[in-house]
């Protein structure tokens, strides 16, 4: 199995933020996790990516146990994530943000040569900027970008690690409809190249890009299946979409 989460649990005090969550993921597929606010989606991401330690349960990636592994190690293994709240280096230029992200994937040879000699990361950073349409803003300070461009940069930094599994936490949060469209196109472009787990509130996007969908509610998995199955599920309708969709 490419990626597997098994009976993952985590409580904060009396609150069971994530309770007995299990799922598996085939290589090259896209899985979306949806659910109302507070359903435990981001906490699940935090458990998978080593921000929090799970109370119990197991995460395996390419056959190896990676439960609770710190983020830098996970990054070297090929798991990268983006953040719901933009998490970039505000004071560095757009290019520096991406280059730094490209630089981290490889182990630390030539740590004390000049940065301009990092041929590979620099070339890759240029490619990613091109993919995101940020080349013109290359030397702009990241903190002064528009919200949408900061979100793109956030995605770019995640891709810079050349991961085989990407976790996107609400990539379109706060984006304009135009920007959301562009992001859907971008994720469709990535599909097949990488395996994706997506947390998203934009239902159109979820149905446009997902191979499978998990619905979470109050820390647990409420339903799981193909997009049309989830759409038809009665429990999901009540909990998440309301009575009608």
């Amino acid at each position, binding site marked *: 199995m490419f990626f597997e989460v098994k009976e993952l649990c985590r409580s904060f005090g009396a609150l069971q933020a994530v309770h007995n969550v299990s799922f598996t993921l085939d290589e090259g597929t896209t899985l979306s996790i949806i659910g109302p606010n507070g359903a435990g989606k981001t906490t699940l991401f935090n458990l998978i990516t080593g921000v929090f330690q799970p109370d119990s349960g197991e995460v395996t990636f390419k056959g190896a146990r990676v439960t609770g592994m710190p983020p*830098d190690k996970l990054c070297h293994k090929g798991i990268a*994530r983006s953040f719901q709240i933009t*998490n970039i280096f505000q004071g560095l230029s757009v290019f520096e943000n991406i280059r730094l992200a490209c630089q*981290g994937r490889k182990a630390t040879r030539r740590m004390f040569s000049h*940065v301009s000699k990092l041929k590979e990361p620099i070339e890759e950073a240029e490619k990613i900027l091109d993919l995101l349409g940020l080349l013109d803003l290359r030397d702009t300070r990241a903190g002064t970008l528009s919200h949408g461009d900061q979100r793109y940069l956030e995605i770019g930094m995640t891709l810079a690690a050349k991961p085989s599994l990407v976790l996107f936490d609400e990539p379109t949060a706060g984006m304009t409809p135009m920007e959301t469209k562009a992001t859907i196109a971008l994720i469709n472009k990535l599909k097949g190249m990488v395996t994706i787990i997506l947390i998203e509130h934009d239902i159109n996007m979820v149905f446009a890009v997902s191979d499978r969908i998990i619905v979470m509610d109050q820390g647990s998995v409420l339903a799981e299946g193909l997009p049309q199955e989830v759409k038809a599920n009665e429990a999901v309708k009540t909990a998440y979409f309301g009575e009608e969709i």
Partner: protein
Amino acid sequence: MGKLNSGSNITRVILFHAVVLAVLAILPLFLSTYHQKLAVEAIILSVFAMSLDLVMGYAGIATFGHAAFFGIGGYAMGVMLKFLFPSIWLGLILAGFCSAVLALFVGVVSIRAKGIYFAILTLAFAEVVYRIIFHSYNTPLGGSDGLVGVPTPMLGLGPFEINLKSTTNFYWVAVAFAYLSYLVCKLIVSSPFGSILSGIRENENRVPFLGFNVKWSKVTAFVIAGAFAGFSGAMFTAFKSYADTEQLSFLLSGKVIVMDLIGGIGTLIGPMIGAVVITVFESIISTHFAAHNIIIGAIFVAVVIFMPKGFLGLFAKKDRNE
């Protein structure tokens, strides 16, 4: 076109360095011995201030105990010259080593704590070092009297020997020491490692997700900074012929922060200028006014309020996005 530009930029930088070095080289010819001595002190302290910039300006880690590394370096040089072997080189090596080991210890123990908590831990460690040496009366370190009577050996430089008893000679050696230290630090901050430090300063929480170990990057920066503080402390002792607890004191830890902030952190050169300004200024007003620290404090407050990027910020190119 781009290449041409960067080529002429490099020429300009080299020319600028050459002019600055030339001015510094001929400066002692116009100075009295008293002012030469002041200049040597200022130059040595500029390396100390620059070492703090590596952690404070680049990695964004506040530390309140940086003088501990300066002082330990000073004592290491004193012990080497007085009791072990009269060689400035060996003294420097011992000083760098001792300060780096101390920094490694303090770093590893304290690095879990962030922000002000880390700063307070460094303060506590520095105070412990200060107290231990302050009360070491019956040891060669001399307790609160300090380690006095440190001899000044010749400085061997290949086939040459430089007589460091001449203040002018020591001045030139200090300039060379500061310049080399600057080049090495510049290399460090322009390296991939330097970018990681900037990343940590800008957003520590994101850095691990890019595949970097934040803790060890911070400790490494702390150790490098500690070693450079040690080198400068060693030069200070070699110049002054003594090491005393003032070199370890909280007062100096505080003063070096002021130097860095006044000069402009995150620039390396800014803190060096800050160190020179503070040292010279202190010497001028202290001859006229006993409570000179009040004036320095007032200047510090004014700089922080009106020039948050320090003196160097006045000359920095305006960020075109701001």
